[in-house]
C-alpha cells in the first residue's frame, strides 16, 4: 500500500448532543480512489467536511482528535483558505454559481489572485476538458452556469473543484442528480485523475464503490466498521458480517 495521504486519528465530531463521528481512525492512501459507503446519517458527509475544515461553518460543532494531510494537522492550519484550495469538493446536488460558465471555473483561481487572462483561459479549458464538459460548452462559455442542465452543472462543479489544482478531490454522492451516461463519463474521468490526485468518493451506490474504488471504508452509525481493499470488502467473507449484509443490500 502506498503512503497514507490523509489520516484520521481518533476523530470524534458532535453537533450539540448528536454524535456524527465516533472515534474514527482511517488512512486514505495517496493517488488512489478511496470509497466510503454506508447508510444514511452514518457520518460520511461529516467526514468529508473535516478534511477541508468546512466543518467550521457548522454551528455548535465539537471536534476532537486529529486529521492530517501529508502529516500536517488540519485543525492547526493557519491559513484555512489555502488548505481548502488543496482540496476539491463536489456536492450531491450541483450548485452552479450565478455566474457564467467561464467565471464559475475561473472563480477559485481569481480568488487566489490569478488575473492573467491567458492563464485563466488555459486553466478553464483544461478543467472543463478534465470534467468531460468542454465539448458541450466551449461555444457558450458566457452562458450562465445555472442555465446548464443538471448533469452539465454537476460536471461544472467538478471542473470548479479542479480549478484550484487540488491534490485531493472529494466527491459526495456526485451521481444523485446525474443520468447514468454522464455518471459513467465522470467515473472514467476519476480513474484518469487518480494518477495525479487522491480521490475520496462517498457514495450510496455500493456498485459504484465496487467499480471505482481501490479501497473502501464501510461506515455505520458514526463508526468505521471495516476498511480494506475493494475485493476484500465485496468478497464472500468480509471481516464484518455487517459489511456483508450492507453490501448485499440486506439493510441500509
Amino acid at each position, binding site marked *: 500500500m502506498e503512503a497514507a495521504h490523509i489520516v484520521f486519528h481518533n476523530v470524534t465530531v458532535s453537533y450539540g448532543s448528536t454524535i456524527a463521528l465516533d472515534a474514527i481512525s482511517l488512512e486514505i492512501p495517496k493517488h488512489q480512489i478511496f470509497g466510503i459507503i454506508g447508510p444514511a446519517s452514518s457520518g460520511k458527509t461529516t467526514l468529508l467536511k473535516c478534511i*477541508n475544515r*468546512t466543518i467550521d*461553518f457548522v*454551528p455548535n460543532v465539537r471536534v476532537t482528535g486529529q486529521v492530517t494531510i501529508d502529516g500536517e494537522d488540519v485543525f492547526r492550519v493557519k491559513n484555512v*483558505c*489555502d*488548505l*481548502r*484550495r488543496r*482540496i476539491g*469538493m463536489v*456536492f450531491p*446536488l450541483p*450548485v*452552479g*454559481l*450565478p*455566474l457564467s460558465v467561464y467565471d464559475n471555473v475561473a*472563480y*477559485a483561481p481569481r*480568488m*487566489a489572485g490569478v488575473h492573467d487572462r491567458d492563464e485563466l483561459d488555459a486553466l478553464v479549458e483544461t478543467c472543463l476538458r478534465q470534467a468531460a464538459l468542454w465539448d458541450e460548452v466551449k461555444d457558450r462559455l458566457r452562458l*450562465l452556469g*445555472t442555465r446548464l442542465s443538471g448533469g452539465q452543472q454537476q460536471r461544472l*462543479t467538478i471542473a*470548479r*473543484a479542479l*480549478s*484550484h489544482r487540488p491534490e485531493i478531490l472529494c466527491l459526495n454522492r456526485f451521481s444523485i442528480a446525474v443520468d447514468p451516461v454522464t455518471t459513467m463519463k465522470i467515473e472514467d474521468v476519476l480513474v484518469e485523475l487518480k494518477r495525479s490526485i487522491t480521490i475520496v468518493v462517498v457514495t450510496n451506490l455500493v456498485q459504484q464503490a465496487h467499480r471505482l474504488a481501490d479501497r473502501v471504508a464501510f461506515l455505520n452509525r458514526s463508526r468505521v466498521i471495516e476498511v480494506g481493499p475493494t475485493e476484500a470488502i465485496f468478497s464472500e467473507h468480509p471481516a464484518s458480517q455487517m459489511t456483508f449484509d450492507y453490501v448485499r443490500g440486506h439493510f441500509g
Partner: protein
Amino acid sequence: MSLEAGLFTAGPIERRKRRVERVAHVILLLTTAALILPLFAIVIYLVVKAWPVLSWSFLVENPQHYMTAGGIWAPLVGTFYVVVLSLAIAAPIGVLAGVYLNEYARENWLTRLVNLAVVNLAGVPSIVHALFGVGVFVMMAGFGRSVAAASCTLAIMTLPVIITSTREALAAVPFAFREACWNMGASRWQTIRTIVLPNAIGGILTGVILQVSRAAGETAPILFTGAVFYVAVPDSGLASFFPYGLRDPFMALSYHLFTIATQVTGVSEALAYGTAVVLIALVVTVNLVSIVLRVRLRSRRKW
C-alpha cells in the same frame, strides 16, 4: 350506463361545492376592491381640492404673505435635505450591520440581544424617536434644532428597518452558493463581495428606498429636532438650491402641511391640499421606483 352518467353529471355535493366556490370568489374580490377604493378616493379628493393651486410655480415658489400664498419650494428642499442626509447615515450603517448579522454573527446571547433590539426599535413610535433625538442630538451632541439633528433622528428611526430588509435580502441568496465558494478556498468576505452582495443588492436597495418615503412623510421626529414654521430662503438662483446649512433649522413638507392646515389663519384650503398632493406624489413615486427596481432585478435573477 348509470355509472357513467353519475360520473359526468354534477351531484348535490358537486353543486354545493361550486356554489361555495363562487361565493368565496366574490367575497375575496370585494375585499380586494375595498382595499383599493379608499386609496383612489383619497387621491381624487386631494387632487380635486388642490386643483386651483397645482402648477409648476407652486413647486418652485417660496411661501409668501405669512404663508397664505405662494408655493412650497422651501419645505420641499428641506424635506429633500433631511431625507437624503438621513439615508446617507442610515443606509451604510444598516446595510453593513445587516451583512454582519446575517453572514458573520454566530447564534449567541449578543446576537439575540441585537435582534431583539432591532425588532423593538422598529416598533417604537416615531414621537419617542423624536424625544430621543431632542435629548441626544439637539442637546447632548449640541447640534441644536437643525438639519443635522433631524437627519440623525430620522436615521435612527429608519435604521432597524434597513437592517431587517438587508438581512432578508441576504438570506434569500441560497446558502449552497456560500458553501460552494468556501469549498473553493474563498474567504467569507470574498464570498460576500463576489456572490452574496451582487445577488442581494436588489432587495437591499428596495428596502432602503422604501425608507425614503417613510422618512419624507414623518412629522413627529423632525418636529422637535429642527423643522420650523418658516424660514426665509432665496427665491431664485443657485442659492435657492442650498438654503439650509447643517446647523440651520429648516422647513419640511409634512410639518408645513400641518402648520398651514391648522396653525395659520387665512390660508386658502387649496394650498394645504396642494402640499398634501405633492407629499403623496413624492411617496408614490418613490414606491414606484422601488417596485420597478425590484421587478427588473428579479427578472435578471440568475438561479
